[in-house]
């Protein structure tokens, strides 16, 4: 991939167990976030780092936007919705500052 990987080394390696922060910035005021509501607080697994990109939460407000690591994170689908078929998954691009070790 040609995505810039400079600036910050990935904190999480492929296979790392992570939890998405259970955070709801939209309740605190205007914001732009790229973390879907349905994965917040959920356990997932890092598939791979995707490179570093300017933080969209700053870009949206024309603030200086430091590069942040982006990851592909995999979630089992049934626990999210309490329905669905075991083995089905959802893969989501999530920025590092939304992830915690699990």
């Amino acid at each position: 991939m040609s995505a810039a990987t400079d600036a910050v080394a990935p904190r999480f390696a492929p296979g790392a167990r992570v939890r998405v922060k259970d955070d709801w910035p939209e309740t605190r005021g205007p914001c732009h976030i790229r973390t879907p509501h349905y994965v917040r607080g959920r356990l997932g697994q890092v598939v791979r780092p995707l490179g570093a990109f300017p933080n969209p939460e700053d870009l949206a407000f024309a603030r200086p936007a430091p590069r942040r690591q982006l990851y592909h994170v995999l979630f089992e689908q049934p626990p999210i919705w309490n329905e669905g078929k075991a083995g089905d998954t959802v893969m989501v691009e999530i920025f590092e500052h939304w992830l915690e070790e699990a």
Partner: protein
Amino acid sequence: MAAPPSGASLALLEKLVAALNAKGLVSETEIAERQAITDRASPEIGARMVARAWTDPEYYALLMRDGKAAAEAAGASMAGAPELGVLENTPKQHHLVVCTLCSCYPRALLGYPPGWYKSFAYRSRAVREPRAVLAEWGTQLADDVEIRVVDSTADYRWMVLPMRPKGTEGWSAEKLAAIVTRDALVGVAVPRVE
């Protein structure tokens, strides 16, 4: 297709463009260039990429390693476009692409997204009940095939690399490209041999 934009939306758009112009953030020329790139793009580019990946191992390797370079090689204009990731379907795993937050779509190689891709119905259902969505498309998967929904939330755009169907042995890349539809590149359908 989506309904044409209302007069109020067009008036708002005009004001937004004028404001961006005044701030020197974007010019009419740049907007026209972006529109031309998207107008030129069509699912045929994606279909060509898939057919070539099925028939040319070196191109397949390039596609999996660097989607943007592979798209350029197939005639897409990727300058200024987001990264392109490729999701390879296998006998055990089928990918379905959705953007639950808005309507992120690999426009550089598929053109404008269809209305259904941008609909609330598709965006909310694909991620929650993908098997029901696929069934409504008439897409039957074997019971042991896992579905991986890919929510396009950030700086990549995603295309599905479908499996080459049985019965296409010896086909040329041109003939193969004709059975790869836009819907197969999003993952709601699979290529079929009639």
